[in-house]
């Protein structure tokens, strides 16, 4: 393949997915305010204006970031100043790195070269995501430890206990997906979900693994550390791990939370909702099971798929917001009970039953 084209494609794909995550993350700060307002019969933030223009409070995103950057960056009296500065960077970095293996489209052909719409098409995609999730705990642990504050240390201990507990459930839940699709590559998993079950039902992961989807979503929300699982932070009464952070360092932690939310939405989409797949849309256009086809050019098909991926991710971000503004917070023992005594056994049962069914069908 042409080297220039290859480099250009890699840079383009990386920019696309990074900008997608960052801009959607910024948008989510606005969505969080406006959605909660609508759910509670309020108007929500609408005062920021440029030249008298308010556009439903969208300028609050700019106002917030300007505020964050302008605030005093107070560093506590700690012997670990470098680690204190590094912790928020790590949190955001590993959250963003996971997006490298998320496929946001199938492939496009430029000048005879096939370019897969995924930054890093590795055959260990699932493991890569897990690795990044696990390493993300470091940002939080280091933040709590380097703050030289017992309360933030306790907060980070709560956070790491929670994240490690729920990572086990996330891993066990995906064993079912692994057994069905028999691959670790996310692109291949999405491609396998393009088929039809019984001739009309899209073979999405949620239909093959309904319990798996439910468990993954629950554990995933717990992994993002947001209400009802926001024990590490507990902004309304207990003290969280970033109590000693101010200015944009705090902003990065907050932003990492939103990016984590988008990541969970992307993973749910990829594993259980067919990723970029549009039902009945094949490479040549729509082919409905009841007959009838709509032929389309490759570019239209590909853009439809990317739009479908973005739409599904947006929906799951909305759903997580809805859950976050509906449920009260769990107590810490309830949280641990849910993780170890409910989610883990259920995901084990799910894996065993899936294995038996896969074996039975295979024979």
């Amino acid at each position, binding site marked *: 393949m042409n080297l220039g084209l290859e480099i250009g494609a890699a840079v383009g794909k990386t920019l696309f997915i990074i900008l997608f995550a960052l801009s959607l993350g910024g948008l989510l700060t606005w969505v969080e305010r406006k959605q909660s307002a609508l*759910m509670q*019969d*309020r*108007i929500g933030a609408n005062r920021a204006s440029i030249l008298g223009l308010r556009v439903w409070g969208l300028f609050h995103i700019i106002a917030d970031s300007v505020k964050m950057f302008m605030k005093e960056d107070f560093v506590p009296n700690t012997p670990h100043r470098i680690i204190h500065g590094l912790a928020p960077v790590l949190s955001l970095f590993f959250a963003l790195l996971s997006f490298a293996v998320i496929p946001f489209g199938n492939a496009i052909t430029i000048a005879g070269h096939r370019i897969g719409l995924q930054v890093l098409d590795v055959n260990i995609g699932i493991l890569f995501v897990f690795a990044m999730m696990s390493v993300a705990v470091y940002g939080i642990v280091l933040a709590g430890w380097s703050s030289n504050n017992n309360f933030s240390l306790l907060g980070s201990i709560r956070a790491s206990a929670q994240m490690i507990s729920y990572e086990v459930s996330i891993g066990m839940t995906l064993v079912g997906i692994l057994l069905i699709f028999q691959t670790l590559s996310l692109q291949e998993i999405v491609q396998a979900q393009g088929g039809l079950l019984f001739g009309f039902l899209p073979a999405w992961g949620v239909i093959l693994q309904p319990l798996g989807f439910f468990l993954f979503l629950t554990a995933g929300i717990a992994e993002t550390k947001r209400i009802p699982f926001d024990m590490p932070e507990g902004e309304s009464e207990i003290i969280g791990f970033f109590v000693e952070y101010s200015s944009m360092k705090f902003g990065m932690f907050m932003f990492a939370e939103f990016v984590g939310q988008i990541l969970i939405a992307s993973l749910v989409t990829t594993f259980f909702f067919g990723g970029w797949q549009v039902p009945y849309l094949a490479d040549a256009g729509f082919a409905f099971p009841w007959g009838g086809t709509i032929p389309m050019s490759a570019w239209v098909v590909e853009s439809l798929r990317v739009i479908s991926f973005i739409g599904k991710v947006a929906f799951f971000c909305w759903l997580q917001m*809805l*859950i976050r*503004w*509906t*449920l009260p917070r769990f107590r810490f023992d309830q949280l641990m009970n849910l993780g170890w005594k409910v989610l883990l056994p259920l995901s084990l049962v799910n894996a065993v039953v899936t294995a038996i069914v896969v074996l039975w069908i295979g024979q």
Partner: protein
Amino acid sequence: MGRVNVINVSERRRELTFLERIYVVEVVRGLAITAGHFFRNLIRHTLRLFGIKTAEPAATFQYPEVRRPAAPRLRSLHRLARHPDGTPRCVACMMCETVCPAFCIFIKAEEVDDPNIEKRPKSFDIDIGRCVFCGFCVEACPEDAIRMDTGITEIGSLSRTGMVLDINMLLSLPPKEERGDKPVDFLQKRLVDYNLVPEIQAKT
């Protein structure tokens, strides 16, 4: 006598059913309620954007522009009423100063030649910073001179002395009905701007 409906709270406590205990169904029911509000308000906001009249999508008031309707008997900032000829109604009887539980009214009386009133206030200061808005002064007043019907509730100043209203200011404040409902103007004005009457016109 009507029958009083008493609810024994301890009797309402009951064992949760199995469906309630596994929590999932209840979560979905909760999500249905909040999602219902979300979509209902979203549709209403969208329809209003296109100029179609709908029910109110928000229970809140857009505060500085839109005021919550106040009850007619709301106790707001004080004013001193005048006679139709412009003279103050107050006769400096000291009733309000005596009854005030916050000791925020300070009256200095002076003599006047008019045999009907004999006394009038030389100065009449209210320290709004100490006032508790109990309305006792209004009830105590035999001349119906001090009233709390201006409708002004945004009272603020950058200093403590700025919170002390003198007699000129109190006499110049109009009742809510005369002021009309121009809230934005009102917010941007300071209390000092209401100091319109240069001095009390003594009745000779």
